[in-house]
């Protein structure tokens, strides 16, 4: 297995085969991978927030769903992928704390707004989301390997899922 590349908060990494991309400890954040199964090229981004419009500046486009998805596609295009072959998998968007009546607030609803915004961005870019493990109240660590094209999602207490 190739040396894993850690994708930190708001980071965006693309790579040709062979590569293993990992993101540890996602809470409300989203780990999104877009890949081309034929050329075995993949990219991962660690999205923190749904919408860049409230931000004063955007030093890291990977931070927001609305800027991360277009940039990820652009970076993958630079590696010569065939856009029609691209598929996506994602995990994250949990709500780590639950307080009665607070699920829709700006702070507590960020996980579900991240899921919604990312899904919407993928749909409008015409990228098929083939697997996802999102929501709930537990954190996740994710790993994607260009060898298997599997997205491995680990959760404390409930083990490992392979998407």
């Amino acid at each position: 297995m190739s040396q894993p590349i850690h994708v930190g908060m708001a980071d965006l990494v693309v790579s040709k085969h062979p590569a293993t991309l990992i993101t540890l400890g996602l809470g409300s954040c989203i780990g999104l991978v877009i890949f081309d199964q034929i050329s075995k090229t993949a990219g991962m981004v660690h999205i923190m927030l749904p919408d860049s419009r409230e931000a004063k500046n955007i030093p890291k486009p990977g931070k927001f769903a609305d800027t991360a998805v277009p940039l990820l596609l652009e970076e993958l295009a630079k590696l010569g992928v065939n856009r029609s072959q691209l598929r996506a998998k994602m995990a994250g968007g949990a709500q780590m704390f639950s307080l009665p009546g607070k699920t829709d607030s700006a702070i507590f609803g960020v996980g579900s707004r991240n899921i919604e915004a990312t899904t919407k961005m993928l749909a409008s870019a015409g990228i098929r989301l083939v697997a996802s493990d999102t929501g709930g109240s537990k954190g996740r660590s994710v790993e994607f390997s260009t060898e298997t094209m599997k997205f491995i999602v680990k959760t404390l207490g409930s083990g490992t899922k392979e998407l």
Partner: protein
Amino acid sequence: MMDENSEFTSIHMDAIREIGNIGTGNAATALSRLIGRAVDMDVPVAELVPIYEVTAHYGSPETRVCAVLIRSEELFSCSLMFLIDEEKADILADLVIPMDISGMPDEEKFQMRNSALAEQGNIILGTFLNALSQITGWTLPTTTPAVARDMLGSIMDVVASTFGVMGDSAMLVKTTLHIKGLESDLGGTVIMIPDPGTLETLLAKLGVL
């Protein structure tokens, strides 16, 4: 309203640190009364940390932690978090459970410890907010506490995403409480997480903005 978090000056940092100082001093006293042991606290530090590094600031992303969170939502909308390593959290919980629970089924033990931690976190964080209330003259009603046990990285998303809405740095008021009289210190950390834009309200109230 400030344009950039980078415009925080040392005066702002000092004002925030002073709140941390009084807040956690009171919190240490309250916790000490509750558990009947001496509780020391480190001098609070207020620092600006890039939001992308808040997890690394406290440990590694997959460290198992327990966090108690309460919110204040009227004049000053803000979350306060008490963060402690999970194994230490259980030792802390057991200090206030008045019976031996070692033989209980895991699920019951878990529930019992979580409610003990919710109460301890509530006292620590509520006392912190009381200090803030005294300094500002604001009435700051709080929510009931929420407890989460998970990976540090997932928990710290609350901090990073709240500060991240408007800027790229988090002003962390960090202080550690040490509980004496046990084989090892039980250190826990209090983190203040003002909602986007509200830190300025607080600084204005303190007369430093």
